[in-house]
């Protein structure tokens, strides 16, 4: 080792230069992949706004379709979707959250619990058309609900149940174990611990999962096609035993099943649908950010 000041011991070597090149290459590669992901989403939105934007009006949103669905509005479909999603939530949220609480707070790690977890994962992987057929068999025929909002919503609920369970489970698990131990060591029962500490601190995560589920349910078409959504029903449903139109199915119908539809109409429907979904996602993110900001530990 020389200590003479002329030799720069920090000088760049050949190896450094070639390493830097590789480094730069990968950086650009990964960045391009990310941009590629955003591209389709941006394109879809741009086309929808460009072609469907002019369709959107107060009348379009709040009047019935007329002239064999080639003109008029989408009001029954819009309301129908709200019905379907609300009833599905009423069913899947209490059930899913309860199951998540059991799995996270009560269940011991044994073969039975592992089997339940496996079932949930598998349920998430079942194609939606299979759920649709199950819905027909179980709710429409066996329970005798007929093709109705109830049958369609239950089918949607079953389909989204795994999402609710998994997201609720994750947010329950995110509550530090130390809080539970503190409660237990003071003689709190499991339920007292859940009620007073675990749930209040995981509710933001659970709600986020629920809102994500809403947006997914809104867009589903296959599960409701045979169970409760109608091709064309120019009036509003009055109870859960009625059939209803739905936005997603309406989009399918006006795009492929009906002749002489003006070009902008399907785009308009699609824009309303995606608008609903994006609004709910945005609400979910905003809500989560708000609740996170309040929480401190």
């Amino acid at each position, binding site marked *: 080792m020389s200590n003479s000041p002329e030799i720069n011991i920090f000088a760049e070597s050949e190896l450094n230069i070639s390493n830097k090149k590789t480094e730069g290459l990968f950086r650009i590669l990964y960045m391009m992949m990310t941009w590629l992901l955003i591209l389709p989403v941006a394109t879809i939105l741009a086309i929808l706004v460009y072609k469907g934007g002019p369709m959107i009006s107060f009348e379009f949103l709040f009047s019935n379709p007329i002239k064999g669905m080639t003109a008029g509005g989408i009001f029954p479909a819009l309301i129908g979707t709200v019905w379907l999603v609300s009833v599905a939530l009423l069913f899947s949220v209490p059930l899913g959250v309860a199951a998540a609480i059991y799995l996270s707070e009560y269940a011991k790690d044994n073969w039975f619990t592992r089997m339940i977890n496996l079932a949930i994962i598998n349920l998430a992987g079942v194609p939606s058309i299979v759920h649709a057929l199950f819905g027909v068999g179980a709710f429409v025929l066996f329970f005798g609900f007929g093709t109705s909002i109830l049958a369609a919503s239950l089918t949607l609920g079953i389909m989204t149940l795994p999402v609710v369970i998994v997201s609720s489970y994750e947010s329950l698990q995110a509550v530090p174990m130390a809080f539970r131990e*503190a*409660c*237990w*060591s*003071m*003689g*709190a029962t499991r339920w007292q611990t859940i009620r007073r500490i675990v749930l209040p601190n995981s509710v933001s995560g659970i709600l986020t999962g629920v809102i994500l589920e809403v947006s997914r349910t809104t867009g589903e078409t296959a599960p409701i096609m045979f169970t409760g959504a109608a091709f064309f029903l120019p009036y509003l449903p009055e109870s859960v035993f009625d059939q209803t139109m739905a936005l997603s199915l309406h989009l399918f119908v006006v795009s492929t099943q009906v002749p002489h539809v003006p070009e902008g109409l399907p785009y308009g429907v699609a824009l309303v649908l995606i608008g609903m979904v994006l609004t709910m996602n945005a609400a979910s993110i905003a809500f989560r950010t708000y609740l996170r900001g309040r929480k401190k530990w």
Partner: protein
Amino acid sequence: MSEVSTATTGKYSIESEKLNLWYGSFQALFDVDLRIKKGIITSMIGPSGCGKSTYLRSVNRINERLGYVKITGSIKVMGQNVYAEDAELVQVRKQIGMVFQRPNPLPLSIRDNIIFGHRLHTPKSEKVSVKKEDELIENSLKQVLLWDKVKDNLKRKATELSLEEQQKLCIARLLPVKPAVILMDEPCSALDPKGTAAVEELIWELRDNYTILIVTHNMAQARRASEECIFMLMGKVVEHAPTDEMFVNPEHEETADYIEGRYG
């Protein structure tokens, strides 16, 4: 407490007999026989993995939630076996408070933290006046020397306090339910020297009213802040003696080696 139990244990708060404990197939405690005196501070020392925390966690049965733990033998607290058929877990935990290594105040206000345990054990039908709650809170916080610091903002979140204050709060919240025994699992290891001194001082203050069993890695702390000392090694009790005696004149060679820092 029944008369029988007072008769048999005037002197001891915790007595374990032939206590064996397994985590799955690994045996962590071997025939641990201990009698821990009432109303004093007893410290447990020993190298990592010697079973001292395991023992502590067996006393209030908090080990139990791990499904793979198996226990034989008995632990009597105030003369009654905590593992008996008719011992209610909630009552066991109420009688035996615990302070953890890392301060774990609940994400609630200071006030709600202190009154939490009391509320747990009060039936819904029984209305506790705000005045009564305030009294309990003031008393508890005064006992842990925290009252003057926090009395003006009891609504503040307990998780925003300093670590030292958090640990004091964790001790204070045990007091309203009047436990007979307080277990402490390395209560100062997350604190700085100043915090450690303050919490040790507090533990010393509490010793007349409670039996305190404290696990520590810090031998100087065991020496300063306990009256009796237990040395454990590989799941067995090696020595149990008054602290002064053990540190000046240990009976066993292993104890001497450990105290002098030759291992652990």
